[in-house]
């Protein structure tokens, strides 16, 4: 009956938090760490949740990806299809394509999970880009958060590669063309291109059968592990140096945080967001068709289609390949730098390089080495905001040109005309926007300053009128006295 007394003791404890903490603390002596974690303060503004959205999309990717891996066969061995889909019956195809076809058309929930996986990838990158823009335009990458930023940019690069490998594994006609383009860009790397591509592909395009096994292990193990490790480091660094926060009230300063603690305030919010994100991804997966591979058919190296495109997050590379004027760098009869290098390799290296190096580039120009825990409003850093808008516009216009053929078919503006417009526009429009945005920022700052002075004056005037009348009279009578 000793148990009754113990039960009474536990009933007296109303703090639901204390029990699990004690349980773990007794076994891991982790109470100080957990207490600290639970008291971690989260900023209130919604834009601090964009990175969290990317995290939840990643979780959905892992969960759905595991299901897909139960059915996928990474083999290019050819056989005839005799399944349920009439337009492909009797067609030669690889086992890889056949396995995804069967997963999509025959297995229970296979299409739902594959489409959810694909939408999650598209929206993972959408969330990353939105998160990156928020961090950039609020200067949240500044000291002491440069490492967090660099890891974030690295994850962007890893996510791009991971996405490319994901849809390339299917071996449908569309993705086969994508691999051919990637192979061409790889070959264009000066000097090392040829040997490197031979090492990866095992033989000239389409490569040896082992190539699919290599892509597979990279997609389902290497890159997810890299991403998970980087996510861990990213979060650890955020926790170590804390979130930035907007100066939403006068209580918020560079050294004092205002926000909601992890537990009990932030956990339900984050859980809610996780379920919302997963719900949205599954809704997309169930309602909106993505990459209908049965309509594309199997890939063979002699086949192609018009209007082939990569997924959106690699569209900027197709745009750059198409926009680059035709020229190679040759030494005698040796082509040192073949043309695809500029658009397919140098361009993304420049973009990711500028992004990764931005905290240091900006420091060089501003000379600002101070510690910043307050997220700036974009107007308060006119140069950075103007550069960011110009840079994004540059990349966006190159991205948009990747769809110029479809713009031509839909809107009738001829491809050649668009080529000329874009070749000039990608330089002129960002420059013009740089000047314009900087001016708008400065004027907004000036308007803020005026408003601040006005408010201060009104406050003073109010205090003035609230003073007792005799004081006023006495000051007026002073000169005569």
């Amino acid at each position, binding site marked *: 009956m000793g148990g009754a007394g113990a039960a009474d003791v536990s009933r007296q404890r109303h703090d639901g938090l204390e029990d699990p903490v004690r349980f773990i603390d007794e076994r891991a002596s982790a109470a100080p760490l957990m207490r600290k974690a639970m008291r971690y303060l989260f900023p209130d503004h*919604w834009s601090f949740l964009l990175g969290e959205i990317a995290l939840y999309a990643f979780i959905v990717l892992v969960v759905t990806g595991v299901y897909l891996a139960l059915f996928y066969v990474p083999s290019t061995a050819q056989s005839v299809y005799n399944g349920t889909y009439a*337009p492909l019956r009797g*067609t030669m195809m690889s086992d890889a394509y056949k396995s995804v076809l069967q997963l999509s058309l025959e297995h229970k929930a296979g299409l739902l999970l594959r489409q959810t996986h694909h*939408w999650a990838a598209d929206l993972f990158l959408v969330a990353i880009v939105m998160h990156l823009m928020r961090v950039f335009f609020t200067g949240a990458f500044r000291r002491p958060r440069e490492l967090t930023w660099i890891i974030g940019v690295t994850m962007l690069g890893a996510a791009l590669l991971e996405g490319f490998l994901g849809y390339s594994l299917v071996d449908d006609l569309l993705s086969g063309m994508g691999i051919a383009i990637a192979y061409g860009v790889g070959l264009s790397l000066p000097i090392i291109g040829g040997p490197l591509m031979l090492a990866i592909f095992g033989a000239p395009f389409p490569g040896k059968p082992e190539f699919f096994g290599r892509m597979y292990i990279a997609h389902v193990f290497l890159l997810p592990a890299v991403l998970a490790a980087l996510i861990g480091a990213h979060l650890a660094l955020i926790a170590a140096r804390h979130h930035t926060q907007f100066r939403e009230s006068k209580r918020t300063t560079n050294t004092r945080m205002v926000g909601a603690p992890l537990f009990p305030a932030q956990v339900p919010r984050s859980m809610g967001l996780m379920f*919302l994100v997963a719900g949205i991804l599954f809704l997309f997966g169930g*309602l909106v068709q993505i990459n*209908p591979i049965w*309509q594309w058919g199997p890939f063979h190296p002699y086949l192609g289609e018009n*209007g082939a495109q990569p997924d959106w997050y690699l569209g900027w590379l197709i745009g750059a390949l198409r926009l680059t004027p035709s020229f190679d760098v040759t030494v005698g009869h040796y082509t040192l730098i073949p043309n695809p290098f500029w658009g397919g390799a140098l361009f993304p290296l420049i973009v990711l390089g500028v992004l990764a190096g931005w905290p240091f580039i900006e420091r060089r120009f501003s000379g600002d080495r101070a510690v910043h825990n307050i997220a700036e409003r974009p107007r308060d850093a006119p140069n950075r905001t103007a550069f960011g808008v110009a840079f994004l516009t540059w990349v966006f216009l190159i991205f948009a040109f990747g769809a110029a053929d479809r713009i031509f078919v839909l809107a009738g503006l001829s491809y050649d005309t668009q080529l000329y417009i874009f070749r000039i526009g990608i330089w002129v429009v960002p420059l013009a926007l740089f000047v314009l945005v900087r001016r708008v920022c400065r004027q907004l700052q000036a308007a803020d300053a005026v408003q601040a002075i006005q408010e201060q004056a009104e406050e003073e005037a109010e205090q003035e009128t609230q003073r007792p009348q005799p004081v006023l009279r006495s000051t007026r009578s002073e000169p005569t006295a």
Partner: protein
Amino acid sequence: MIGPRLTAVIIVALLAGPTAVALAATQVGIVRPTSEPARPSAALGAQLYAGNCASCHGIAGAGISAARPGAGAVPGAGPPLRRVGALAVDFYLRRGYMPLSSIHDEPGDQRVLFSDKEIRSLVAYVAGLGRGPAIPHPVPDPANISDGFSLFTDHCSGCHQLVGRGGFVTGAKVPPLQSIAPTQIAEAVRIGPYLMPRFSRTQISDRQLNAIIAYVQSTSHPDNRGGWGIGNLGPIPEGLVAWWIGAPLLVLSARAVSRRRRSG
């Protein structure tokens, strides 16, 4: 300040635009006999040919090799039509490729300017100018759709896109195929209009052509079992959906959970 020279340039530019449009718009319209017979006839075809085709294709389909002014002083030049047969005439007129407003235009799906009776008359007239292929009568059989799909990826999708949605090739717009009648598809395969290559019966047999047409017909209602098909174009509409529908939903979710609620 705007100087006098810049003002002059602006005025010239403002005047030049409408003038160019007005000049370009003058030569549209079909010349018709004052009264047309009730039924199609080669005689009506001859009249229509003389009024609308001869300035480029020459008297009685002889062709004009060097451009020279024709009707309305518009320069005309075009290939001879003596042995093109009914097939080519039927295709070019029913798809609105001919007549061109200018010899510099890209022939393509434009507007059909002749009535069915007039087209039959012109077909009869031109077919009578010399021996040539007759109008084909394809019989697409949905049972051969898998042959059709694989032949389509072999011969057609390189320009027409895998689901026949068209696109761009250097120098020309590739039409989407969903609204094109089986007869015109068969005709186009045999003649290769504008930049399209022509395919002989040894390259694509009539049986294979029927299979291809069966596949093309199926693309009007492709198997969109994944949900909303968003145009069957692949990544471009997918990216648009991701950014215009997905991104706002994600942002709204973030806003929904981060709104502060003040309670007890």
